[in-house]
């Protein structure tokens, strides 16, 4: 059957450079002696470590618990001993550190008990939880937790499930090799995902420059009723929104999710790892990484998560003139700050760059508003406008023009005749805006808390004053009642304000109140007896007695002239 294909606007056609790394089958990376597994590998918070230093773990044992329902679990990639849980540098453009589990491999590769699940008999909710606990995240590069994407949308059911095998970025071939060699696993994984969302149809989109992958999946597909659709090779056909558009013609607006339109998209690697998690009971502890570029023996290797990248590079021998390593592809990847960093679930490719392969960027020239970027933008934005706004730090305007729709694919920078590093400006603007947003939320919360505190303090003050007023009123009442027993009973609930007109009487009452207070204080003073004198020497006790006698005398003197205290 020939499916009608749609087109997305823009895009570019860079040289694909995929043949270099597809000549040899997927190799298995040797087990390194020490693995560093970052706890944060996906969006939605950092999982809490479940192990302690010194603890022995089995291969596939859970070492990081997903935080609520938003992140995905982390597992031990091999059996061994946890050496430390400490901040280590991540393969991230910032070069910052985050908590990692450092695992010393024992080389035995002893698995936990693996429990296969018959997905056809399991409920979608149970399967979603199983995927979360197996650490399944999107392996296309963004590492978004898959169980969240499998929740039915507001519009109800997901009718079309798309399996993304486009792999449009140059140099990367890990999905291509996975489809060639493990097509059956992908198809089975797709069937599981389809069962979870009960989709009507499954479309596998593959760029038409991968005929072997298309043939392999077609050979595996008929059994499960999955349609393999070759899509024209054009970067970024593998972008989620772009592939959905090409295959179904549906255009997803800003801020909305594919599920609202009845479509959802998963990478082929994600489908394959879902199959391993459900039908083999193996959590996501390894992935296929393309090692290519300026190396002697480019290829694809299956790597345990947490393997140091410099160990992997020894397998392919980077050439002498390699000056940097890129994680990801040349369009969207970033230069690694160091090479002793671990492989994460998002690491699809390590690309060795040399000045010959990737010449240093020519100096930037002014934007001439030629519009080439606008024609190339697959998100249908106006990149030159965003460039101006980001450069001027006019973030409000950039947002108005839809900068958060930008997928940072790099098409605009690729075609720019002035060599402007446009994506760097967008990344700067987007992260700055997110930081401002966080600050705004924090300051709004602080304002609320401050205002609440002020209100509370005022209320407490008022309550205290009211209590005091009530107490004084009651005392006055008591004295007035005692002094004038013959007079008629005074109004019982007489407050200070009400009794104000009776001034002379009030003065009397006040005087009586003061006299009573003085008498109370005096009684208290006289009642004070020296304490802790039982175990003292006799001469000390005599001294104390003498002092007490003097005090009593002074009190007597003080009592005789009551006027003129000082």
């Amino acid at each position, binding site marked *: 059957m020939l499916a009608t294909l749609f087109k997305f606007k823009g895009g570019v056609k860079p040289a694909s450079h995929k043949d270099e790394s597809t000549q040899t089958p997927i190799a298995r990376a040797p087990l390194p002696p020490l693995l560093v597994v970052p706890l944060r590998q996906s969006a939605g918070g950092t999982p809490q470590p479940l192990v302690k230093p010194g603890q022995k773990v089995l291969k596939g044992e859970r070492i990081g618990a997903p935080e609520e329902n938003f992140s995905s679990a982390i597992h031990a990639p091999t059996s061994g001993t946890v050496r430390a849980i400490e901040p280590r540098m991540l393969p991230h453009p910032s070069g910052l550190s985050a908590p990692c589990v450092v695992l010393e491999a024992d080389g035995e590769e002893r698995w936990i008990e693996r429990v296969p699940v018959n997905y056809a008999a399991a409920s979608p909710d149970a399967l979603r939880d199983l995927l979360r606990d197996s650490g399944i995240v999107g392996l296309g590069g963004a590492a978004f937790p898959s169980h969240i994407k499998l929740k039915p949308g507001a519009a109800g059911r997901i009718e079309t499930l798309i399996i993304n095998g486009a792999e449009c970025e140059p140099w990367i071939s890990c999905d291509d090799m996975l489809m060639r060699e493990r097509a059956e696993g992908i198809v089975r994984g797709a069937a599981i995902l389809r069962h979870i969302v009960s989709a009507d149809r499954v479309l596998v989109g593959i760029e038409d420059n991968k005929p072997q992958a298309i043939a392999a999946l077609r050979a595996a597909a008929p059994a499960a009723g999955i349609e393999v659709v070759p899509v024209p090779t054009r970067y970024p056909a593998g972008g989620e929104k772009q592939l959905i558009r090409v295959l179904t013609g549906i255009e997803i607006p800003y801020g909305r999710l594919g599920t609202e339109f009845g479509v959802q998209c998963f990478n082929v690697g994600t489908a394959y790892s879902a199959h391993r998690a459900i039908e083999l009971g193996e959590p996501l502890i390894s992935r296929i990484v393309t090692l290519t570029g300026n190396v002697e023996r480019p290829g694809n290797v299956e790597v345990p998560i947490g393997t140091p990248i410099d160990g992997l590079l020894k397998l392919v021998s980077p050439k002498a003139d390699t000056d940097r390593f890129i994680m990801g592809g040349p369009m969207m990847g970033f230069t690694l700050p160091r090479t002793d960093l671990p492989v994460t679930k998002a690491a699809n490719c390590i690309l060795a760059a040399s000045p010959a392969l990737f010449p240093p960027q020519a*100096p930037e020239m002014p934007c001439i508003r030629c519009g080439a970027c606008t024609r190339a933008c697959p998100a249908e934005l106006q990149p030159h406008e965003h460039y101006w706004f980001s450069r001027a730090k006019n973030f409000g305007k950039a947002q108005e023009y839809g900068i958060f729709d930008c997928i940072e694919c790099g098409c605009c920078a690729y075609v720019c005749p002035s060599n402007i590093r446009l994506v760097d400006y967008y*990344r*700067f603007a*987007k992260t700055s805006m997110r930081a401002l947003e966080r600050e705004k939320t924090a300051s709004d919360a*602080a304002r609320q808390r*401050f205002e609440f*505190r002020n209100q509370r303090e005022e209320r407490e003050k008022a309550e205290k004053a009211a209590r005091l007023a009530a107490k004084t009123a009651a005392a006055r009442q008591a004295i007035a009642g005692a002094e004038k027993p013959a007079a008629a009973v005074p109004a019982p609930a007489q407050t200070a304000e009400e009794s104000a007109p009776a001034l002379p009487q009030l003065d009397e009452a006040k005087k009586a109140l003061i006299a009573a207070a003085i008498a109370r204080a005096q009684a208290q003073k006289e009642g004070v007896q020296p304490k802790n004198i039982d175990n003292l020497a006799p001469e000390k006790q005599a001294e104390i007695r003498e002092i007490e006698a003097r005090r009593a005398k002074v009190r007597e003197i003080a009592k005789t002239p009551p006027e003129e205290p000082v």
Partner: protein
Amino acid sequence: MITALLVMAGIAVVLGALLGYASIRFKVKGDPLVDKIDAILPQTQCGQCGFAGCKPYAQAIARGEAEINQCPPGGEEGIRKLADLLGKEFKPLSAEHGTEKPKQVAVIDEALCIGCTLCAQACPVDAIVGAAKQMHTVVAPLCTGCELCVPPCPVDCIAMVPVPETVETWKWKYPVVQMKVVEHA
């Protein structure tokens, strides 16, 4: 002549009554300018500006009694925004009110804390928890870094620690690029 005068006077009376009614009916409650200024201020409630919190400072600015450069936590960025809003000239941060520092958070050395509750009373945003004679601690996400808890502490167990940058809060730097040098013949 008389008719014209009467007509004009009549119109004046009607319009005057309308304006008078509108000024009562559509009176703006509160000062909207204060809220706009308050939204720009960082809400640390630190009092470094000389007022008891951000709102009083905003009110003072709105009345024209305070300068716009008295808020060290807001920094240069904040002064620029205030200058924009009020149509005033930008001024550098006034030195007598303090200097701009990176964002900090208070940390209580819990071994030294004697549980006097003085810091909890000083905290303008209720970010310190702890009862009398019990250890106190700072709820870090709520702390605005105002430093108001530091002076009241009798045992000097509160330290201000800069908030470290994490992968989540990290920002791409503003691109600094080499421009092509054009040589004039």
